[in-house]
């Protein structure tokens, strides 16, 4: 399928999980298709990077569920900051590990998972609905009947992830150092879409990596988009690193006269992903 086919399966108001981490292996070609679409009022769950910044800047986000938003080499995401400071997006703030547990709970179809993470912190101040649960069992190291945070499940209407390779049926492979939480995003979602650098025949999947790299099987995937350079400008090791120059231009645009509209006109107001990739190649 194409990026626009994926977007056609999404609806305003949906909760969408986006894979990757910070400015690493983000499904940016699908994000760009969302930016071109009429979708709005999305709830976005993400270990956030430029995916979050761009979706916020374009007014697509009603609520953001996050533990951080960062461009990695540029610590703070300028368009996310602007959206938050102007009150344009509602936020559910969590600890990084709580996001993992919320996705895991949704994947396992349980209402919550317990953790110590969050106790005593202002996460309870910013999440008035966050609850604790008392352990029915003695804990390790003398923790009798202790109170733990009950991280609510984070079920997703759709998940979007970018991987290095897959076959046409959605058996996918990551070749970089970290899967991040892509498998959990997909398992927590009703509809599961991946974009990949290259679609290969199933029997070629082990050409570039061991069987351990086949962490996303077709049980977790409903549709595949072939999207070479699709994570641009985020990194997609080992296929390519982050486009630091482009990312700097993106971040600087938030302070420049043209602002988001200028950046958008220059790079995003194009017919499709192929036109974007041509523009980037001619940069």
């Amino acid at each position: 399928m194409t990026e626009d086919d994926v977007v056609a399966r999404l609806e305003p108001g949906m909760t969408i999980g986006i894979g990757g981490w910070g400015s690493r292996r983000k499904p940016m070609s699908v994000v760009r298709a969302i930016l071109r679409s009429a979708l709005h009022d999305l709830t976005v769950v993400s270990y956030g990077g430029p995916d979050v910044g761009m979706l916020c800047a374009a007014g697509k986000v009603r609520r953001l569920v996050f533990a951080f938003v960062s461009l990695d080499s540029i610590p703070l995401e300028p368009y996310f900051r602007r959206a938050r400071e102007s009150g344009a997006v509602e936020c559910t703030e969590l600890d990084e590990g709580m996001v993992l547990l919320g996705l895991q709970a949704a994947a396992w179809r349980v209402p919550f998972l317990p953790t110590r993470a969050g106790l005593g912190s202002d996460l309870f101040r910013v999440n008035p609905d966050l609850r604790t649960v008392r352990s029915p069992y003695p804990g390790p190291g003398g923790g009798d009947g202790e109170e733990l945070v009950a991280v609510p499940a984070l079920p997703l209407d759709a998940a979007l992830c970018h991987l290095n390779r897959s076959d046409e049926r959605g058996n996918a492979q990551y070749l970089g150092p970290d899967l991040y939480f892509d498998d959990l995003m997909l398992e927590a979602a009703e509809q599961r879409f991946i974009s990949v650098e290259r679609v290969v025949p199933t029997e070629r999947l082990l050409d570039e990596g061991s069987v351990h790299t086949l962490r996303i099987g077709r049980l977790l995937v409903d549709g595949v988009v072939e999207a070479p350079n699709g994570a641009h400008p985020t990194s997609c090791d080992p296929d390519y690193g982050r486009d630091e120059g482009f990312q700097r231009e993106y971040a600087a645009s938030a302070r420049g006269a043209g602002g988001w509209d200028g950046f958008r006109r220059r790079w995003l107001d194009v017919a499709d992903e192929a036109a974007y990739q041509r523009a980037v190649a001619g940069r």
Partner: protein
Amino acid sequence: MSTATRAGVCAVAVAEAFRGDGERLANPIGTIPMIGGRLARASFEPDLVMTDGEACLVADHAAFEWPSGKVSEAWNPYRRMFDVVWGGRRHVMMGATQVDRYGNQNIAALGPDPQRPKVQLLGFRGAPGNTINNTTSYWVPNHSPKVFVERVDVVCGIGYDRAAELGPVAARFHEIRRVVSNLGVFDFETPDHRMRLRSVHPGVSVDDVVEATGFELVVPDDVGESRPPTEDELRLLRDVIDPSGLREAEVPDG
């Protein structure tokens, strides 16, 4: 008369924060923390386990550059890192945009209303989970009353007062070991766990530190000086850990 720069003293102070940790994941975040952690392992804490800042645990002493290839000893993707945090075999050194007298830390947002922040920062990141599960220290390269504040705007990493409110059971894995700044070293080794000035860096007076701190520090009568690097440590910093001198850019001298 030492040839040590302030950055070198800071790196040693960071290293000292990891003294006694043994075979634990030392997870210093930031330039001088990464250098200081490597320095501890290369000298007096050889069993420390350290990351490459990505998904590997590495045996090399170089902090940032591996021109002849890095030696990975284990794979440690983010998923594994949470296992280590929640299992407790870890000492993390994080940054702090604000820190208060009990060691509460803020990296999320500034302003009175966290739902509508004046200044949005990173987010809570892993600070709540870190502080309740494993040993935590903080690094502050720009000591000022804006960082060392009476009360943090948002409690991300929890300090000793919050831990005390939770009670001894919930907080049994909580420890804020040190705060290292560009001016001195601080700990919480006081009866009520208020922040104490442990040492001042050479060239810094106690008054300088008090002046730059927005709350009342516990100041013992005999505050010593942070120790400069030894000859061996200087050589390690210069030749092995940070040959490009990134530490000097983070904390310039003078």
